[in-house]
């Protein structure tokens, strides 16, 4: 069975420039992306890269400078926020302080002029969903951060939006709660079937929760893909470094093509795919994750690689190898913890498919 994917949101050539009297900030540059219906889609990037800006453009809080945005094939850039069937969970929750929990959650339904019994039914339903039914008569300032978070979620879910926008909703919570909420949010998304557009700067959050991720840097989309794709084959150095740990090793090309060959400055040769625009003797950067590198014992006369740092982590260890000014990070699996120690001479192997030439 193949289901045709429905486009929930299409962002087309979107540029956003903030202008004030003396400065211009290009928050987004020619961004393109498509978010499918029922998807948990994450915008991931460092602080200030333009994630919130993109979210606010979708919600309608900012005027677009260039480009267009479609919501289920309908152009929305000219609609005011109240005419867009999307709802937002704000980073600082922004609950209405003068209304109690019930009225906060019922707010959208009331504006939509739903009748009283339906409003009540739906409000209690979402409060139940986020386990805040017992707090309906409390004011927001009588709630903990985690509870406010749930109310903010309920408030945005109550009018049954087609798309839910979440701006770093977990960043204000402490670690334990944050981890619990990750799971809850993911479950909530699956159960409601609402498209989630989730903003975070936390790569772990993005990897664990998302169906697909768009990595953004300085207003430009770097890569869009499933978590495995982004982690296993980052499209450039920024993505490689931002997601997880990465070794970016310098070397030069010996032969290109499907069965190419590169030599690192450490003297090691690697068999890997080398794109055809790279010619013999061109400089290349090779990307490999620390956990993919295999190390074996060696001796001083056979290898110039030695363990210069050994960091014990309990269930694993990270080590640093140094040679010719190059540093290689390697993760040691638990069974090798006792085998190696600082100062040992070692040799490394790159399993097939673990390394990649990167721009």
């Amino acid at each position, binding site marked *: 069975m193949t289901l045709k994917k429905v486009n929930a949101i299409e962002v087309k050539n979107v540029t956003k420039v903030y202008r004030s009297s003396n400065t211009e900030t290009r928050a987004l540059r020619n961004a393109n992306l498509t978010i499918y219906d029922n998807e948990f889609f994450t915008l991931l990037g460092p602080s200030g890269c333009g994630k919130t800006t993109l979210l606010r453009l979708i*919600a309608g*809080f900012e005027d677009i400078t260039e480009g267009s945005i479609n919501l289920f094939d309908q152009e929305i850039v000219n609609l005011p*926020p*109240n005419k867009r069937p999307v709802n937002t969970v*704000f980073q*600082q929750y922004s609950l*209405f302080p003068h209304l109690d929990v019930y009225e906060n959650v019922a*707010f959208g339904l009331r*504006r939509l002029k739903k009748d009283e019994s339906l409003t009540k039914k739906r409000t209690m339903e979402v409060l139940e969903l986020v386990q805040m039914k017992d707090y309906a008569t409390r004011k927001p300032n009588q709630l903990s951060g985690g509870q406010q978070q749930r109310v903010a979620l309920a408030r945005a879910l109550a009018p049954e939006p087609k798309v839910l926008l979440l701006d770093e909703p977990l960043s204000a919570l402490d670690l334990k709660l944050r981890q619990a909420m990750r799971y809850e949010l993911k479950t909530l998304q699956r159960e409601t079937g609402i498209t989630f557009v989730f903003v975070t700067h936390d790569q772990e959050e993005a990897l664990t929760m998302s169906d697909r991720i768009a990595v953004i840097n300085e207003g430009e989309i770097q890569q869009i893909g499933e978590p495995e794709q982004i982690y296993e084959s980052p499209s450039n150095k920024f993505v490689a470094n931002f997601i997880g740990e990465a070794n970016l090793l310098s070397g030069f090309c010996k032969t290109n093509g499907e069965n190419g060959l590169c030599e690192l400055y450490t003297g090691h040769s690697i068999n890997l795919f080398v794109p055809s625009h790279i010619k013999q003797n061109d400089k290349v950067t090779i990307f490999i994750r620390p956990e993919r590198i295999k190390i074996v014992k060696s001796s001083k006369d056979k290898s110039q690689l030695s363990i210069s740092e050994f960091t014990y982590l309990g269930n694993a260890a990270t080590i640093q190898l140094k040679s010719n000014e190059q540093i290689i990070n390697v993760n040691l699996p638990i069974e090798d913890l006792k085998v190696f120690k600082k100062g040992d001479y070692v040799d490394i192997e790159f399993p097939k498919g673990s390394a990649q030439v990167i721009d």
Partner: protein
Amino acid sequence: MLAKNKKTKFRYVWNFPGFGGWTAIFFGFLYVPIFVLVCYSFNSSKFAMIWTGFSFRWYAKLFSNDDIQTATINSLIVAFAAAPLATIIATFSALALVRGGEFRFREFSNGLITLPLMVPEIVTAVATLIFFASLGINFGLINVIIAHTVFCIPFAFMPIKAALEAMDPNLELAARDLYSDKTSTFKTITLPLLTPGILSGFMLAFVISIDDFIITLMVAGGGSTTLPVYIYSMVKMGVSPEVNAVSSLMLGFSIFIVSLYWFFNRKINN
């Protein structure tokens, strides 16, 4: 031990030598005269400064003095007309300046609104007088109301602006996001959250208007005398116990209004 003592000695301002004494003198100068004034307003003697016994006679006399009553009514009419007008204008100015986005002369407008707070009142008074005279505007009490409205605006403006600035702009966006148009966002979110600020702006404008002397003295013609101006004319003829009584009443009234102001102010800040 000694070093530690030395270090902590001036940590709090009340650790300075003589701090307590100076404070007492300061508060004494401020409040003893007021206290004495209130006490002597209950004096039964005709001479202001000789205590002969407790009585409400001067208060009773106040209520049979037509001039004082007219002046009081004038004061109240002016304050109840000028303070709301000033508050409304101040509210819209604050909304435009804080929520109006970037526009030309924004900083300049903000300065322009608050500047009258720093202009010596006598300058404003003379200017207003000349202004009215040269345009031939002479509508009695209405002149006073116009003048009061104008100079009360900055006082009403400041607490309203502060309340608006303290308000999370995302609240209005959240309402818009939840299918609320501009009008209903203003009615359901902005206005209720701004109410304490507006009320405290109103109180401030009201007290300032009730209390004003210099501008009123210049602008008010015969028949539109307000209470402070009338009291001044009474004092010129000698301090009578009646002045004490009327001043005490004004004091009580001001304290009441200022308490309301603090009450609303506290609501903004939490």
